[in-house]
């Protein structure tokens, strides 16, 4: 298992692949099965946004270690239309889930860190990470 994986996202099938590789990498890092579910969920939500808003993009997975602690960084990148109002996009109720707080705000809550950079007309990058809690 490589410590970096690139998955191009063009279709639902690619979301599957990204989930599968994310789960495998998470297992390698030592995450328990509930965390693996959350990692797969976060990948689903990010990849789903790529298909929905940019039609294509990529998901990058990194296995990392810091202070002898394992973790995973997931980066979702697209060259889509970008998000015009990031603050609003992070509010529950703005997303396509109809106010349930899924989508981006949901992903943020599942992870240890969350960063979003979006340039209107140029695209969006979301970087999230999860650490193994000892």
């Amino acid at each position: 298992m490589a410590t970096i994986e690139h998955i191009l996202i063009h279709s639902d099938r690619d979301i599957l692949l990204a989930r599968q590789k994310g789960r495998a990498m998470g297992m390698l890092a030592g995450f328990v099965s509930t965390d693996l579910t959350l990692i797969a969920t976060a990948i689903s939500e990010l990849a789903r946004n790529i298909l929905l808003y940019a039609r294509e993009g990529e998901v990058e997975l990194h296995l990392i270690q810091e202070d002898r602690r394992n973790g995973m960084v997931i980066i979702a990148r697209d060259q889509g239309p970008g998000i015009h109002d990031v603050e609003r996009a992070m509010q529950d109720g703005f997303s396509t889930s109809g106010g349930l707080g899924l989508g981006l705000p949901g992903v943020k809550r599942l992870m240890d860190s969350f960063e979003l950079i979006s340039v209107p007309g140029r695209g969006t990058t979301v970087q999230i990470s999860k650490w193994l809690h000892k």
Partner: protein
Amino acid sequence: MTGLSQSSIRRRESALADYRRVLDQMLAEPDEEAALSQAYNLGRTLLAAGMGLLDLLDLHHQVLAERLGAISPPVKDYGGSAGVVLTPRDISRAAGRLLAEAMSSHEMLLRGYTEANDALLRMNERLERQIGQIAHALHDESGQLLAAVFVELDQSLKTMPEAEQLRLEPVRELLERMENQLRRMAHELRPTILDDLGLRAALEFLSDGVAARNNLAITVEGQLNCRLPPPVELGLYRCVQECLNNVVRHARARKVRIRLLSGPQALEIRVADDGCGFDPAPAIPARGIGLVGLRERMRVLGGKLEIRSHPGSGAEIRLQLPGVVCGGNYVPAPAVS
């Protein structure tokens, strides 16, 4: 199954069919991720369609029971090797993984609510600290300034002829009234009487002050047979305070009746006025933010708010706190959405 509408039965049937399909796929295919991903999407869709967690669990149990009952003949080859018979353990394990996946969206939702609730509690604490600071400024700092004014006044009076002294006497009286008012306001803001004597005494003290300042008749009736945890008592006190603020601001009432009712498993405080009333139906009624804040406050305490009012015929606000067992322990009801 009584009480379920045709459409909700149909919705459940179609959800059951989806769940069966996903579980069978999970059991049949070596590529589990496809089934897990579908389980996730199913859970997300059902959540968005309004299905609750217990309904999802119910669905899961039913499908699992069906598949465990229909265990032989072997469902299909599994893991690519021919002739593998699925044991109940295989099925249970697969179903468990599937359920976790389907519930993942609920986890996001739950974390969202927990976060919002924590934020409300923190905001409440910050507000209480600010109220404390204002009370301190009113009571101690303004009190000291006034004391200094009294000393100055007394010294000036000594050097004055008696006729002048008499003329200043009303000034002294006004200052004394002001001092009393400030002290009173400070105590209403930060009711130490609440800690010492309990909710009923604190509400009486509050009512006396509000009544005197606003030319209202306010009565407090009923009794609580128990003490509640300090944050709950303070929360209820703040709610009644807000109710009285609303009455003063909007109701044009003459009488207000506050009743404390404690049943075997719940506690209720009713604040009724004989004012102009309002229509409680709109999402944000005419009384606006005050009521929204009140509702949020009750929610944080694990209780709820009921409004009874019609334009022209007064209003009654019922602050309800279930889970209170007087004479015993206070068991907070979980905050609900």
